[in-house]
């Protein structure tokens, strides 16, 4: 019996599967938080959730709406100041995995969350900006990027390089001496891209069930490199879907109560 699920659910579940049990994880709001908490409630119960608000080892029962919700600090093993979080913990090199979203991404997994169109001084769209993304991209052991796959997002040239992936590809990241190794996967609602080991160019290595390679290529704003053999992402399991939906429902109920 085939399960019914949305492409966003597939994306979240595919991201959750990348989380190794026990890893300290830098979590943002939205999909990363959903993926991390899904992982914690399925295959990776000892995942250590770290939110940039300073909450270390948070164990939320519902997904937070802000990065510093009360439930995060109440359930955390430690709550530290922001300067300490960024210096001793993130820059300190203690975080194995970071999640990033983006408004734009290029073929070397560099991302833009600053401005779209126009000039920097007079942009067409002013986005929120870097926040902690630059340091996550630079200092986490590895980085997973999640975003919806379309040509507006997957662009040949970024309007602004907010956070570095592999810069101009090849050894250009290595030359900058950044502590973390960079993005190891880009997980979208269509499939999974991973960097080529040498050129660092993002390569389509998996498509989600029901998605074709041609579709992914068509939604990418540069000539997408495709692996010789493209996997099909395993479908969500019944358990994964049940846990994710339960998490989302509990979250919606909890937040609806906060008027």
């Amino acid at each position, binding site marked *: 019996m085939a399960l019914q699920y949305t492409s966003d659910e597939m994306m979240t579940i595919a991201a959750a599967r990348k989380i190794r049990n026990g890893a300290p994880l830098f979590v943002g*709001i939205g999909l990363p938080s959903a993926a991390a908490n899904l992982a914690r409630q399925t295959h990776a119960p000892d995942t250590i959730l770290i939110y*940039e*608000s*300073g*909450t270390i080892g948070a164990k939320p029962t519902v997904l937070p*709406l*802000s*990065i*510093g*919700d*009360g439930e*995060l*600090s*109440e359930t955390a093993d430690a*709550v530290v*100041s*922001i*300067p300490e*979080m*960024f*210096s001793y913990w*993130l*820059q300190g090199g203690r975080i194995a995995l970071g999640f990033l979203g983006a408004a734009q991404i290029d073929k070397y997994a560099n991302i833009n969350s*600053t401005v779209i169109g*126009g000039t*920097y*001084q*007079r*942009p*067409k*769209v*002013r*986005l*929120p*900006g*870097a*926040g*902690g*993304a*630059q*340091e996550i991209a*630079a*200092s986490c052991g590895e980085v997973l990027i999640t975003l919806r796959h379309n040509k507006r997002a997957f662009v040949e040239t970024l309007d*602004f*390089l*907010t*956070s*570095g992936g592999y*810069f101009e590809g090849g050894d250009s*990241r290595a030359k*900058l*001496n*950044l*502590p973390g190794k960079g993005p190891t996967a880009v997980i979208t609602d269509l499939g999974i891209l991973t960097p080529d080991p040498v050129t660092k160019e993002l390569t389509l290595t998996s498509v989600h069930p029901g998605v074709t390679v041609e579709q992914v290529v068509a939604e990418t704003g540069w000539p997408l490199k495709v692996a010789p053999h493209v996997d099909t992402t395993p479908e969500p399991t019944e358990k994964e879907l049940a846990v994710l939906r339960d998490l989302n429902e509990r979250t919606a109920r909890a*937040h609806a109560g*906060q*008027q």
Partner: protein
Amino acid sequence: MAHITQLSDAIRDAVRDGDIVALEGFTHLIPYAAGHEIVRQAKRDLTVIRMTPDVIYDMLIGSGCVKKIVFSWGGNPGVGSLHRLRDAVEKDWPLPIEVEEHAHAGMAAMYAAGAANLPFGLLRGYIGTDLTKHNGRIKFIDCPFTGEKLAAVPAHRPDVTVIHAQKADRKGNVLMWGVVGVQKEAVLAAKRSIVTVEEIVDDLQAPPNAVVLPYWVVGHVCEVKGGAFPSYAQGYYARNNAFYKKWDDISKDRESFTSWMDKHIKGTKDFAEFKLSLAGQTLGGK
């Protein structure tokens, strides 16, 4: 040296046109009541600093108080854009706004440097990113031991820092707990400070190693119950997520923003009246 006073007097006394002002709070304990009062008193030409400017900065910008913003993430957390910030940057409304943009780690280092009386903060950061092309206040230095290239950012030294905390005692010692953000550093880096609190008590009953600002490093201390609404004060009230969502509608266009501000902020005499003005109706009054 702390003195306990009314919020309106504190803002009148400590926030001056042209000042560099930091209203800090990282998703928690955001000093909304104090921000409203800055709007009511129509302060002008402010340079406003904050890691995460949110709805209260949208109010300040849309009300024409702000000349320049220094920040690292400007959005409505959990909701989306700050429409008033965007309108100022994209279309100069109500005034052109100068932008000095950083990343979180840089902003944290700038506050910490200010608190430590160092001229600059040091971090591994900014390398290879476009922020350095547009922000001349990000420089790089070489480690004298390893030769590594590290970022240097100038210390924040606000004229006045405004924060909200849970408690003060009658001397003016301030206690906060939970997500404490960069507030201690922001106060210690500033020339003057205003701290609004949920309550003033006889004894703080602070646990060991709690985050306490001694009375002799803070300025005005004002009791403003609920003064962090719609953000939250751990131990007192939860975040009002509905207001954050509603703000998206209120602030989307200039007219609805202006009429909301006129009615609920400029048309009320203080935070208690503001809360009353919201209570009799659906949020935002549309």
